[in-house]
């Protein structure tokens, strides 16, 4: 990575220092942790994509024989679990890491070592989950693993579900730790003058997302604990024979699961809300409305979970009430879309790849939103539920929405992270190939759904009228695959040979574009004083009069334009007398300990915990205690 030289160069002799690979393993620098998150998330994005391609190959023709039924169940379960928990969420987190501290004018996150801990827990959790492939079989009950199909009497052929339960617990620890960190960071580490109503929209959405995470994840944690106890210790939480209601799992899961949907989409909405103004050279239209509609979505997310259970027979009142709340949530969503159009209206659109993806987001997400309204009406939902219509809807939201938004973010901030531009031509090829492939894959699934094709079937007879559309969808899926390869090539070549970006390649408006690309590890030579909503724009174009209060030039490292001097190094933190937290290996050890503890449970099928859990626990306690009592030099 291009940043390596810059950041390692700057640790002072008297400080603990690690070279080479260790400088990454023990780093507590939010930018490097962000890069680790991004690379890992993209890796798992490819893994999940591969699983999807296998699923599509199996369904390309009636009576497909590419994989067997059990493997098929494992594939779609792991595809969804991987994409949601190992790819999209961490990719958002990587942007929280890289961008948020820069956007609010901070030197790092509030808890740098907790930040490192989150990443390593995420990595180990992801490995734990995927190692299930090696130990007999992967999880096979779908990503929302409805009890009691996940219970031992019906799922004891492999330990897949055990891996799923424990893997998700570990990943939960990571997401929670990360979310706590960003909440404190945004509340407490904003530069002077950076009031909440001056925060860039991406930071706003990070705030909302983190709140959703810390409040929604415990509900899933409880569900997983109950399932784990059922499987490991013979409890009866979801055991009908003991009088339990398996439907309890559906409530617990969707109480988490629906906020989770917004956890996945809100960061992408934040990215789009930052990209559109930059590339139309206009401020975001209706900033407060967009921000508050995000908050409103965050609140409403808690009142709609039952719309995932309209076919569970909860009764007409429940169906009616939750149908209304669900329709209501379309209002703030629509408001965002109209404000985005309002933002580009009257601008001078600089048609670069990030803008293409941001516009693609609006176009595709609108479709997902509209099919969402169709699912919000129970009688219509009774026709659509658990058919391919739902598969189409959720992909228009999570692919057409989240993934488009995240790609917009990647093309937008790649120069900031690496100091080099991603290639435009390949970028546009990627965009158009992906857009065509995406619509080829998922638009036909609406048709398949209304033609009665159930989701999660490994085979279907011919003569159902599903043959053509399945084939089209499969062709589309491989087109998407090709587009992703284009992206991977583009990223790998640009990171080495891409043209130099400079501090502000897009004529940006927010603080991150004030500092060199890649930023020095201390980010800001001098913490800027923020006078307006778009500090950099305000400083570059005082005449546009966006300053709340009269525009005063914001102090910038070496002055904004001639930042080329930083291309190779520039002053180090110690030259400038800035103290940064030292790298630390305790978070790594603690994370390893945590993962080992859970893995041990699994391999030993506790009780009693196998030796692995014991080692893990020791590791964890050593890590935590070392962490707490670690003498902190710096500051």
């Amino acid at each position: 990575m291009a940043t390596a030289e810059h950041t390692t160069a700057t640790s002072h002799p008297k400080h603990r220092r690690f070279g080479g690979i260790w400088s990454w393993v023990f780093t507590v620098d939010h930018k490097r942790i962000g890069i680790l998150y991004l690379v890992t998330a993209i890796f798992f994005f490819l893994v999940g994509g591969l699983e999807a391609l296998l699923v599509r190959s199996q369904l390309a023709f009636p009576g497909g024989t590419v994989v067997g039924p059990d493997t098929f169940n494992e594939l779609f379960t792991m595809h969804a679990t991987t994409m949601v928990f190992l790819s999209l969420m961490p990719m958002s987190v990587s942007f929280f890491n890289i961008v948020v501290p820069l956007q609010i004018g901070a030197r790092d996150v509030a808890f740098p070592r907790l930040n490192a801990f989150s990443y390593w827990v995420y990595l180990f959790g992801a490995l734990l989950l995927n190692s299930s492939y090696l130990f007999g079989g992967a999880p096979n009950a779908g990503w929302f693993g409805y009890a009691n199909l996940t219970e031992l009497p019906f799922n004891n052929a492999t330990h897949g579900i055990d891996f799923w339960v424990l893997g998700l617990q570990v990943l939960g620890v990571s997401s929670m730790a990360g979310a706590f960190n960003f909440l404190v960071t945004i509340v407490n580490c904003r530069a002077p003058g950076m009031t909440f109503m001056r925060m860039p929209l991406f930071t706003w959405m990070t705030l909302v997302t983190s709140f959703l995470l810390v409040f929604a994840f415990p509900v899933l944690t409880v569900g997983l604990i109950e399932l784990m106890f059922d499987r490991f210790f013979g409890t009866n939480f979801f055991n009908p024979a003991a009088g339990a209601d398996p439907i309890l799992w559906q409530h617990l899961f969707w109480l988490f699961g629906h906020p989770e949907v917004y956890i996945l989409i809100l960061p992408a909405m934040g990215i789009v809300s930052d990209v559109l103004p930059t590339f139309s050279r206009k401020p975001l239209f209706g900033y407060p409305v967009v921000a508050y509609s995000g908050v409103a979505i965050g609140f409403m997310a808690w009142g709609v979970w039952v719309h995932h259970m309209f076919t569970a027979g909860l009764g007409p009142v429940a169906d009616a009430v939750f149908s209304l709340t669900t329709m209501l949530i379309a209002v703030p969503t629509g408001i965002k879309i109209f404000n985005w159009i309002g933002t580009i209206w009257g601008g001078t659109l600089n048609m670069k790849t990030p803008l293409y993806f941001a516009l693609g987001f609006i176009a595709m997400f609108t479709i997902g939103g509209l099919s969402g309204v169709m699912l919000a009406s129970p009688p219509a939902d009774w026709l659509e539920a658990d058919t391919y219509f739902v598969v189409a809807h959720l992909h228009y939201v999570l692919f057409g929405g989240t993934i488009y938004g995240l790609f917009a973010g990647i093309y937008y901030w790649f120069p900031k992270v690496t100091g080099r531009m991603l290639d435009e031509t390949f970028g546009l090829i990627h965009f158009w190939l992906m857009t065509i492939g995406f619509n080829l894959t998922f638009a036909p699934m609406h048709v398949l759904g209304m033609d009665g094709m159930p989701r999660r079937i490994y085979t279907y007879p011919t003569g159902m009228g599903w043959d053509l559309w399945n084939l089209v969808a499969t062709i589309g899926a491989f087109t998407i695959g090709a587009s992703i390869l284009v992206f991977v090539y583009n990223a790998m070549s640009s990171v080495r040979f891409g043209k130099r970006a400079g501090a502000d390649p897009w004529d940006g408006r927010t603080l991150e574009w004030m500092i060199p690309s890649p930023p020095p590890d201390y980010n800001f030579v001098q913490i800027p004083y923020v006078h307006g909503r778009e500090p950099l724009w305000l400083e570059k174009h005082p005449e546009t009069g966006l300053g709340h209060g009269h525009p005063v030039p914001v102090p910038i490292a070496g002055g904004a334009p001639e930042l080329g001097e930083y291309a190779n190094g520039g002053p180090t933190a110690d030259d400038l007398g800035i103290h940064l937290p030292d790298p630390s290996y305790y978070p790594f050890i603690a994370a390893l300990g945590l993962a080992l503890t859970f893995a041990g449970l699994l391999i030993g099928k506790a009780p009693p915990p196998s030796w692995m859990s014991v080692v893990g626990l020791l590791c964890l306690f050593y890590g935590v205690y070392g962490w707490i009592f670690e003498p902190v030099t710096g500051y």
Partner: protein
Amino acid sequence: MGFRIRPPKGLAFLLLIIAVLVLFLTGCASNDPQNALTPVGPVGQMEAGLFTTIFWIAVVVFIIVEALLLYTVFRFRRRPGNDGMPAQTHGNTALELTWTIIPVLILVGIAVPTLTTIASASNIPTGPNALKVGVVGHQWWWEFDYPSQGVVTADELHLPVGTKVALTIQSADVIHSFWVPKLGGKMQAIPNQVNQMWLQADEIGTFDGQCYQLCGTSHANMRFKVIVQSQADFDKWMADQKTVPAKPTAAEIAKGYQVFTTGPCVGCHTIEGTDAKAKIGPNLTHFGSRTTIAGAIMENNPQNLAKWLEDPPAVKPGSLMPNYHLTKDQVTALVAYLESLK
């Protein structure tokens, strides 16, 4: 780059969206066996009707939004003559109110029919003239019983045309989901829970359904048929179902009877008039009268039945009926016996 060749790309984008829409419109309503938008009963009709209403509203909104988006992009893209500093507008309260209120009104328009439809769908018919049917999901086949008539069958639900049917939906093991697309509804079968819905078929014929909730290895092979008959045919069928089959006499059949009653079959299956009274597998009393076997994935004929008996898991992966390694003539005998159970 990109800037001179943009318009064609933009057009491609536009055409793409239109193409998608056209595919959707043409593809949706068809006569395919499990098409949900060509229902033959009142429940399905009101649901499909509501779907269509919302769909067209969505299409209108879709066209407006996407057209607005594309128009904005083409009109305001940077090009010679449009590369200056745009006006730095912040927002417009009137606009914000407009695009808050209009969606709310649209949603009210959707909510009203939604609520009325929920009401009529949840109005389960009761009383003597409503036919009661119990549906029980099993891994991976459907059990149908007529409590008032004391008849139990599997994989094929017989209904009289034009009659309101009150269904109770339950599960014997994991969560399943019951849906006959042409008749409407969809209801999960959940252990320890009795869900209710009602259906009515207004057309004589055979309609397909299957399980819509992932329920394990052979979720895809958990199909069933709804056979809608005239009242007379239905009554005749019901009468046949009530008769207890006589002890067979013909040699081959008697041999099959012997194999069945002394073999492992009795451990799971019921055949009225024999000692086989177990309720784990499908009730086979009138097996010969069914048109399909093995979760309605195969036509019911001697060849298929033999294939099934020789190695059930090979036909239906994960099938709870294991391969008993029956000998060739045991299979032939069983086939003869079971097919004789009309």
